[in-house]
């Protein structure tokens, strides 16, 4: 049996086959882009002492001062991103976490009981879609 060479393979495509192949490539690319977009965030939920302190859109650059038991935590919002700019906590974990970009990302400053979490969807509307995760 003589196997065809790589260039001969094109002979086994009919015109409609190319069309279907093109469509399915488009379909695969579209599925990848829509399902793997990573969830762009559009607002941040800031909590203090377990209660919601404020919900702010990421569209306006600003710095927000949040009071906690140890002092003031500064939260900076810039370029649709958010971070803890300064915090009185001793180990500074939440500050070192840096900028949060995608929906679902969260920075916690436990000693000062302040957190900032990014959400997608409408301001004040959407909450987390799950209430527990297990592996």
């Amino acid at each position, binding site marked *: 049996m003589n196997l065809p060479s790589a260039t001969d*393979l094109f002979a*086994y*495509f*009919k015109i*409609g086959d190319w069309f279907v192949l093109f469509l*399915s490539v488009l*379909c*695969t690319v579209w599925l990848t882009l829509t399902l*793997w977009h990573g969830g762009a965030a559009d607002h941040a939920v800031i909590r203090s002492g377990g209660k919601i302190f404020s919900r702010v859109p990421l569209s306006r650059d600003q710095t927000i001062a949040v009071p906690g038991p140890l002092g003031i935590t500064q939260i900076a919002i810039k370029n649709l991103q958010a971070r803890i700019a300064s915090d009185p906590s001793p180990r500074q974990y939440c500050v070192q976490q840096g900028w949060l970009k995608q929906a679902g990302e969260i920075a916690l400053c436990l000693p000062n009981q302040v957190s900032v979490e990014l959400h997608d969807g409408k301001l004040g509307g959407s909450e987390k*879609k799950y209430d527990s995760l297990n592996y």
Partner: protein
Amino acid sequence: MENWVAARKNMTASIIKLNTTAADHHIAKLAALAIGLSVLEAAIPSPLPGVKPGIANIVTLIVLARFGWRTAAWVTLLRVVGSGLLMGSVLTPGFFLSLSGALSSLMILAISQHLPARWFGAVTHSIFGAFAHIAGQLLLVYFWLIPHMGVAYLIPIFAAAALIFGTANGLIAAYFLSVEKRNVACA
């Protein structure tokens, strides 16, 4: 006592015989070929469960082109059950996944076989079948095994696999069909 002996004689004398036609033998041979390919394929390691080439579907495609959809459906379903028996996976989730994949592929093929053969060949049917296969499997996974939208995260991987393996299997089937045609023409 004599009655009992007579009854026993009658029992041993009766043989269960299935009346099989030439068409049945034909389908059985093709299904055996497909079962062989799927058992062969089970030896190939896969990075993600469910992502595999599906080379047994080459048989389905050739049968569809040569003998029509009814025969293709028989061969495919016999392959699913037969390879399930050989692999010991009958009634496990894996068995139902391949069954749902095969059923949805066959449904799509029932439609796509009516496309004009002048422009649409085995590659078209193979790609349609491959996408229908993953669609059927993912629906079963979502409604039965993992009712969580996280399943959607895997769709691009399965779609890419369907695209690549669907095209490859279709090309192989188109090659065999053209060789067959040439041999018939020479004979």
